[in-house]
């Protein structure tokens, strides 16, 4: 190596202050090992280039030489030179900048890809604007760079730098402060960093002063929000900023605080709302978030929607009042919240109401939302009115009649009791041929004969005569109602009279509800129309309604029709008797109809009304009634015309009594019955049904006259479907073919192959089971190599002998005789001899002279359920990263691909996975169980989707332990998802068939239950947890002791909810599993 060039160089360097040469010489020694001599020369020369830039740039050169040995370690020569050149350029602009650059370099180059180095230098350079302040800023940038580069992806650093630059145009101080804050704040952020920077960027254009406070509040604020929602939240902030809303920092704090107060699962929904609001009036968003916490304390998330949408509507009409609304500073807002918070949603009390109805009726009644009934489109149209179809009670989804939840619940109770009353007290059991109990004369037969005669006369013309003279009617109620010309009036009378009978009966049978019922009736009364305004017929019906609601005093009675009103009251009073049956209602209807139908439906003059009390109208007498009828008939005959008056119109319905459709209920029941006993008689055809429906007074077809035929036929079809009657000429593909069961929206599933089982699934939102929702497919696990099993035993030999010893200790206890008992199976000879001797010696003998066997006979059956989900493939050594299912696709095929991809990276493994430990633990456990002789089964479960819950038999509970089982253990592998509920239910079935007094189910899992359509249903992430909880509860109800062991450290979050008061344990250290599992089991059964 020639030294000449170097000597030259040294001479050159000597021109500069001596520090430069010193630094060079010092560095040279270290550099000689890294670079060849040619490279060295280039390196050294670069130093002179730097030093020669400006007066002060020798300082840069000193720093250059100083850091070179460190930088050279990380960079190859070409990159190294590129780096050095960056320094040269910088020193050209400002030597101080270059110094900072070089100082930061050693820790940068080891963390930054070489091609980014110039860009990094460029970032620092761009902050330098030639001023003193900018140079400080730029220097500060290089100073914090090592931290930034180490912790952030480079592009985020770039964005951040450009933000700082943008700020520097406004204020260098702010820029410097943000730079310093950013160093700490940004690395702590996750995916939301990008959104945060974007938001700050948006701020820097306008309210740049706020950027700093945003940096200050962000870390704390964002912690409050669900990880998945932070980006959306920040995006919202950005958009708000862009439309010019001030005080972003406040938005961050307030907003995150508000979101932090509500459950994570609802946060996304709130953000949806915010985004919706943003589109309408951005100013309202901060107000909304600010009030959110207070509002959420008063109402549920569903009710919040109602409140929110009301506010949005208001905003659209009048932004100012809208904003006041969202600030909860307006009366509208306040009173709406008041109503909402006191209102009661059926969903929340459905379980209680259902059991209540079942208790009262003694039948397995379902309680459903009225909307459900309307959706079936079988004749019920009112969404807010309670009703029943004979097997289900339909109640309105929300009650908000009162300012108090308890009162609203009472309302539900009154309504439900009334509906169940229809069943309990036989409204739908009307039987034409069963005698009424309280009315002596059976007028219906007479009327039927009379009518029958007319009918026959008409029919003769058409040529269709029924031999027995009876009219054709499908149902008994239909038969009754067909006796009347004005079916509408007759039906209204029947309804009010039957409801009167029921309400009376309920008050007698359920005195506890009397007061509430009376309150509800009182309320209803206050809303009834004025009797005086109604035409006569309607007025009389209204009078009956009022009396049925317990108003007997001060009733306005038309003076001219005093007698009629009195007799009507008498008729009604007959039904106010515990003994009255539905046939009495029928007879009462008949009588009331005969009176009212003979009157002219004309409005009475105002002065023709007099208030009167009808509490005790006297007893009903057939003679008086008949004489009234004769009188009416006579006047009708004498007046000649039929006395038209106004056409009769139905009264306003009594809201709490709901929709009463006895004919429809009887029809449905009859159709179902006919369906069940096919072959007997002629089934009702669709045409006949349509005819029936058209005649029925219960159907108010809102359709235009022309559409009636159309909608009746739709009704008829729906009703037949409801009753399970296949429609005539149905063809596959018209909706009656095989149902498609393959998506989550589909219906019930069927087990189509051997060893497949169908189970219900608990839907906590509906508070009910989804019937036949999951198919569990039981399969035997493939056999692998028994080497795994034997190796496991070898590896854990010390632990194994310990475990075995522990277990063997349990065993002898069961056979051990216990001596010296006061009482026992037989005499303990030793003790007896002693006692005998004592007696001889005149010493009081010990009376404990018996022995007996330990009474606890160990008889335990246990099922172990191993989680074989994909997540068990995770390596243990490498720390657990959270399993992210959020972006799992919904489509089954894609889901499989996704799962497979997730697993692929984990196939080639040199480390231990969770499942490996599960397997080893199983091996040890089997040894322990075999030594103790408990009856046990080991199963693995996995699956994808509800139609594919896989249940792998590793050792069936009735199977003996053989080599095959050892080989099966080898094949336990991570598979798909975890639908725990169904697997548990199948395990219950397995255990149920065992006759041990002690039954245990041991669930070993590594995380939350999750599956397609099980754990990712939007807001309802809790679905899986709730279903699993219910499955565990079912086990408990069947005297099975469930126990959950999880190795998921986050397990505490959901296990409490999932297991309730049932046993569970979160294993902090997964390595402890092989030891802990058998020990836990021992504890559980000892």
């Amino acid at each position, binding site marked *: 190596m020639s030294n000449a060039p170097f000597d030259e160089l040294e001479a050159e360097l000597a021109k500069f202050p001596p520090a430069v040469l010193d630094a060079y010489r010092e560095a040279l020694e270290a550099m000689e090992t890294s670079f060849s001599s040619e490279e060295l020369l280039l390196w050294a020369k670069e130093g002179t280039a730097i030093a020669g830039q400006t007066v002060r740039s020798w300082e840069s050169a000193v720093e250059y030489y100083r850091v070179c040995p460190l930088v050279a370690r990380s960079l190859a020569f070409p990159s190294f030179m590129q780096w050095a050149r960056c320094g040269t350029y910088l020193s050209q602009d400002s030597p101080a900048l270059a110094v900072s650059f070089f100082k930061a370099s050693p820790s940068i180059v080891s963390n930054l890809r070489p091609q980014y180095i110039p860009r990094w230098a460029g970032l620092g350079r761009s902050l330098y604007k030639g001023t003193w302040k900018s140079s400080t800023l730029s220097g500060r940038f290089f100073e914090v760079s090592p931290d930034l580069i180490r912790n952030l992806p480079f592009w985020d650093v770039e964005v951040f730098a450009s933000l700082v630059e943008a700020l520097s145009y406004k204020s260098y101080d702010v820029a410097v402060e943000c730079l310093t804050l950013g160093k700490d704040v940004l690395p702590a952020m996750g995916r939301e960093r990008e959104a945060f920077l974007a938001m700050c960027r948006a701020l820097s254009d306008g309210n740049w002063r706020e950027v700093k406070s945003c940096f200050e509040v962000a870390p704390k604020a964002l912690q409050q929000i669900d990880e998945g929602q932070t980006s959306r939240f920040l995006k919202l902030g950005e958009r708000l900023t862009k439309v010019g809303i001030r005080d972003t920092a406040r938005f961050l704090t307030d907003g995150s605080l508000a979101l932090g107060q509500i459950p994570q699962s609802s946060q996304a929904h709130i953000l949806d709302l915010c985004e919706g609001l943003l589109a309408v009036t951005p100013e309202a968003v901060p107000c909304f978030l600010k009030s959110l916490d207070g509002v959420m304390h008063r109402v549920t998330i569903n009710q919040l929607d109602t409140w929110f949408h009301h506010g949005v509507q208001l905003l659209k009409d009048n932004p100012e009042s809208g904003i006041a609304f969202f600030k909860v500073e307006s009366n509208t807002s306040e009173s709406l919240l008041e109503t909402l918070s006191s209102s009661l949603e059926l969903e929340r009390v459905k*379980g*209680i109401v*259902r*059991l*209540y109805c*079942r*208790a*009262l*009726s*003694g*039948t*397995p009644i379902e309680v459903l939302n009225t909307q459900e009934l309307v959706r079936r489109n079988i004749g019920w149209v009112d969404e807010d009115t309670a009703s029943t179809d004979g097997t289900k009670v339909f109640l309105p989804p929300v009650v908000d009649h009162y300012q108090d939840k308890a009162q609203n619940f009472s309302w539900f*109770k009154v309504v439900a*009791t009334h509906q169940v009353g229809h069943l309990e007290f036989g409204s739908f059991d009307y039987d034409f041929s069963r005698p009424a109990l309280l009315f002596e004369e059976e007028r219906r037969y007479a009327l039927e004969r009379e009518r029958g005669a007319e009918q026959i006369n008409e029919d003769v013309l058409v040529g269709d005569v029924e031999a027995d003279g009876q009219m054709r009617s499908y149902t008994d109620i239909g038969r009754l109602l067909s006796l009347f010309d004005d079916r509408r009036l007759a039906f209204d009378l029947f309804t009010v009279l039957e409801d009167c009978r029921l309400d009376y009966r309920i008050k007698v*049978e*359920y*005195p*506890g*509800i*009397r*007061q509430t019922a009376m309150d509800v009736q009182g309320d209803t009364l206050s809303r009834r129309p004025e009797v005086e305004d109604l035409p006569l017929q309607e007025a009389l019906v209204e009078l009956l309604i009022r009396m049925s609601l317990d108003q007997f005093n001060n009733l306005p009675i038309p003076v001219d029709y005093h007698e009629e009103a009195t007799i009507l009251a008498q008729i009604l009073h007959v039904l106010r008797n515990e003994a009255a049956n539905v046939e009495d209602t029928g007879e009462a209807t008949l009588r009331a109809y005969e009176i009212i139908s003979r009157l002219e439906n004309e409005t009475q003059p105002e002065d023709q009304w007099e208030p009167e009390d009808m509490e005790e109208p006297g007893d009903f007498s057939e003679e008086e009634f008949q004489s009234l009828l004769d009188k009416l008939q006579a006047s009708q005959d004498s007046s000649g015309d039929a006395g038209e008056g106004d056409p009769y119109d139905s009264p306003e319905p009594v809201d709490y009594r709901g929709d009463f459709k006895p004919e429809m209920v009887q029809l449905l029941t009859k159709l179902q019955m006919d369906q069940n006993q096919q072959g007997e008689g002629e089934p009702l055809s669709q045409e006949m049904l349509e005819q029936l429906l058209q005649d029925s007074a219960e159907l108010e077809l809102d359709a235009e006259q022309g559409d009636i035929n159309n909608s009746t036929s739709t009704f008829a079809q729906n009703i037949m479907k409801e009753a399970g009657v296949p429609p005539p000429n149905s063809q596959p593909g018209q909706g009656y073919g095989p149902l498609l069961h393959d998506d989550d929206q589909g219906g019930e599933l069927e087990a189509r192959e051997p060893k497949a089982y169908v189970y219900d699934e608990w839907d906590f939102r509906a508070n009910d089971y989804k019937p036949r929702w999951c198919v569990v497919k039981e399969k035997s696990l493939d056999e692998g190599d028994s080497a795994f099993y034997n190796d496991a035993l070898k590896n854990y030999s010390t632990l194994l002998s310990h475990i075995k010893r522990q277990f063997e200790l349990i065993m002898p206890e069961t056979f051990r005789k216990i001596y010296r008992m006061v009482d026992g*199976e*037989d*005499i303990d000879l030793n003790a*007896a001899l002693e*006692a*005998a001797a004592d*007696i001889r010696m005149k010493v009081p*003998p010990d009376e404990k*002279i018996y022995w007996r066997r330990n*009474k606890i006979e160990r008889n335990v059956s246990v099922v172990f359920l191993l989680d074989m989900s994909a997540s068990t493939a995770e390596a243990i050594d490498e720390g657990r990263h959270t399993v992210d299912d959020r972006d799992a696709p919904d489509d089954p095929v894609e889901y499989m691909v996704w799962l497979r991809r997730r697993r692929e990276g984990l196939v080639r493994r040199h480390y231990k996975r969770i499942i490996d430990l599960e397997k080893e633990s199983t091996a040890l456990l089997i040894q322990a169980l075999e030594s103790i002789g408990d009856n046990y089964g080991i199963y693995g479960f996995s699956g994808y989707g509800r139609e594919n819950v896989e249940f792998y038999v590793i050792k069936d509970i009735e199977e003996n332990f053989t080599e095959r089982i050892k080989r099966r253990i080898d094949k336990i592998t991570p598979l798909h998802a975890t639908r725990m509920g169904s697997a548990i239910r199948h395990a219950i079935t397995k255990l149920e068939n065992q*006759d041990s*007094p002690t039954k245990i189910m041991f669930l070993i899992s590594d995380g939350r239950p999750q599956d397609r359509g099980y754990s990712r249903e939007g807001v309802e992430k809790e679905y899986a947890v709730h279903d699993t909880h219910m499955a565990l509860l079912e086990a408990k109800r069947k*005297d099975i002791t469930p126990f959950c062991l999880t190795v998921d450290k986050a397990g505490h979050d959901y296990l409490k909810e999932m297991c309730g008061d049932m046993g569970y344990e979160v294993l902090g250290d997964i390595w402890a599993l092989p030891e802990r599992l058998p020990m836990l089991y021992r504890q559980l059964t000892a």
Partner: protein
Amino acid sequence: MVEAVESEQNEPQFKEYAIEEFLVRSEPYYRPVGDETELFTAAYNQHIPVLLKGPTGCGKTRFVEYMAWKLGRPMTVVRPMDGGRPAQELNEGEVRVPLVTIACHEDLTASDLVGRYLLDSDGTRWIDGPMTRAVKAGAILYLDEVVEARKDTTVLIHPLTDHRRILPVEKTGQIIEADDRFLLCISYNPHYQSALKDLKHSTRQRFISVEFDYPPAEIEAEIVKKESGCNDDQASALAKLGEKVRNLRDHGLAEGASTRLLIYAGRLMTEGIPPRRACQVAIVWTLTDEPELQRSVEEVVSSIFE
């Protein structure tokens, strides 16, 4: 029924009986629902063992007590079996059918029933077990919840319940022929037995089976009134409540409210406890621990009681 027994010295009052001497002396209240008394009397006369089936607290035990009293009454004619001992002369007021009741549990073994050797001051002495005593004394032996007992008890039940009517006493090497008046009666609650604990058919088919259930509402009201001393309205409301709550069997409740519980509630009411509260403690909380179920039953209570 709530009769405060207060002796003048305020000392505890109790009576001791030898097990086979326990006689039901005063008429126990029993309200026949069907023909069960006739059936039992016939079975007794014909030496046919009786199996009483029914849910808890529906009156099985009371029925047996009542029958013991009724059959032991002087006017009852105990018909002699052919070749048996002659009809006894029944003195006025004499009661002859003792009742031996044994509540079975899982530790009850054959020797508990038959007897065992005990040490005496100078040697051992054989002590008859309750079954032996009943067999000798000609009592009605009532094994309550028989399926709970150990399997070895069937060894004793079988020879006693067929035509032999004998009790082998293994340890003493004796066989005891049952007294003519002896009758074995067992009870069994089909509801809460697992398949495991079911009675074996060879055992079952030695008995006639009388099924018990909670009585119909009117009769139950009568019983509740009589037993608890509450008023008519309360009694019929309680009976109604019982009926309604029993509707919830299989909808979460393992067992319906027994007549016994209704009577408890009635007694609390007689003592002045408000009806809703009485039902809550006697019925709702006794029946279930599940909050939703409790609430539902409470709603039924609050509908029925003011």
